[in-house]
């Protein structure tokens, strides 16, 4: 595999990861916390209305997890394409 082929494939996989993670990012904040908030509020989570919980708590927890998943996936990807050396 040529050098630029390798780079292209790496980039494509990277974009796929980013798309997946950003869809989740959008869903927990803009969808669950804003657009669907009133609908979700009919359910409750402990003492929280569910939509309100997503807006003030849940989305933030998910954001943290998303970045760490990204770090993990990218470290693996770097290794796979041999970009993990300096």
């Amino acid at each position, binding site marked *: 595999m040529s050098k630029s082929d390798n780079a292209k494939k790496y980039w494509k996989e990277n974009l796929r990861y980013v798309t997946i993670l950003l869809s989740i990012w959008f869903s927990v904040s803009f969808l669950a916390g804003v657009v669907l*908030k009133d609908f979700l509020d009919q359910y409750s989570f402990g*003492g929280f209305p569910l939509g309100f919980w997503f807006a003030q708590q849940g*989305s*933030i927890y998910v954001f*943290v997890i998303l970045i760490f998943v990204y*770090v993990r996936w990218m470290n693996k990807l770097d290794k796979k394409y041999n*970009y993990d050396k*300096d």
Partner: protein
Amino acid sequence: MTVQIWTYSIVALTFALYIGIAIWSRAGSTKEFYVAGGGVSPLANGMATAADWMSAASFISMAGLISFIGYDGSVYLMGWTGGYVLLALLLAPYLRKFGKFTVPDFIGERYYSKTARLVAVFCALLVSFTYVAGQMRGVGVVFSRFLEVDITTGVIIGMIIVLFYAVLGGMKGITYTQVAQYCVLIFAFMVPAIFISFQMTGNPIPQLGMGGKGADGMYLLEKLNGLSTELGFAEYTSGSKSKMDIFAITAALMVGTAGLPHVIVRFFTVKKVKDARKSAGLALLLIAILYTAAPAVAVFARLNLINTVSGQPYAQMPGWFSNWESTGLLGFNDKNGDGLIQYSANAMLNELTVDRDIMVLANPEIANLPAWVIALVAAGGLAAALSTAAGLLLVISSSVSHDLVKNVFKPDISDKQELLVARLSAVGAVVVAGYFGINPPGFVAAVVALAFGLAAASFFPAIILGIFYKKMNKEGAIAGMIVGIGLMLFYMLKFKFGIFDGGKTAVAGLSKDWWFGISPEGFGFIAMLVNFAVSLTINAVTPEPPGEVQEIVETIRIPSGAGEATH
């Protein structure tokens, strides 16, 4: 010991620590001054980023603000954390690989143009100056309430401290002081939060206590909803802004966060691309501790406030009430002369005015916590304000010394001279920021929130396109930035300051004319979309960028071989 003595001791101790670190970490070269030598560990950078990020607004104002607007306050919680996901996934690794000192550096080189660099410098200075003035004001407020010096003296003391470590240590000094400041501020925020959560719900974890039950067996949120509607306010968990506006403000804050130069530049200080990703994750984790506790503090504070004052006789108010009354941030006007405090959403009947900024600072007193906890909060507020101010001052000074002097006006300047210019511009920036802290032009507070809109409307599209769209050219990027920031400024001036319709007094009446029903705070989102559209349209009708620029884009997409940050 009294609160006063505790406060003096704790504040003096933390200041001594900051100065000690500054002396230990003096900068000897421009590289140390701009990017701390480029060898900061991911954890240290994560902590420094968190302190850099969490300003007086996060520490002092945010929980109080949420306290009064309930669900509507979610825009700050999601907006100021969600931006880190964008930063980690779309910007930080690539900008680190690019390996320069400043954001205008990236814009200038990626778009092979001095004009692009100058436009970026202008945007960076506009964003950073508006932001830093608010920080100095925060320092002044904490000093005046807790140390009982006047605001001017407070601001000057703050200026001297910041000057000391920002000018001496540059990024290196700032990084290691910010690590210490993170520890101080998170401890200071969490201790009272844990105390109060335990007091009110029996659960020491505020994030859980918020959804817990009070002593009367009722869920806190349910009770707060009931009390709010009783007094005529909107239900706490529902809020009153339109969905469209909530969406736009959240988006503007997220994108603005990812576009703020003082945050981005932190990722130039780590060794490898891998470290940049990891430290973005650590930064958000450390920030999330405060950001998930803040809405809990908001609920506790609101309930405590209503329970303590609403319908109670003024003569029986505890000591904190008169303390805050004397600062003018809390007021009682007995309209019906019955000696009771009527608190109501109805302006005709309401007798209590509360500046929302005091909620976090007054909270420990309202909850009767021990004196050392109250003192700790003062030190935490100062740490938050000083750390952010220092980060912003560095952006201002490096924009001047590196982007203007070194790269535009006097390219043959030596490293030593450039370092001197950087230090002098840091001094100049501190003085200007201090001036605005002492004489806040009425609009400072308003403009701080708008700094995000400006960053979203200018930098974010240019950087994203620069990385993800190889064929993006300078004509498109420059036009996009100018139109984006111009449109944002216009909207701000029109709807926030009312300058086209007869000034401040007209502002309230203009809200019905908001485009798409979006407030000036959320308009950065629209201006950003316009920036993208203009960039891509102009790009389509102007020549492709030169081959070597496209090659640069190819290389920044590959993490290996990041090397060190260079000129």
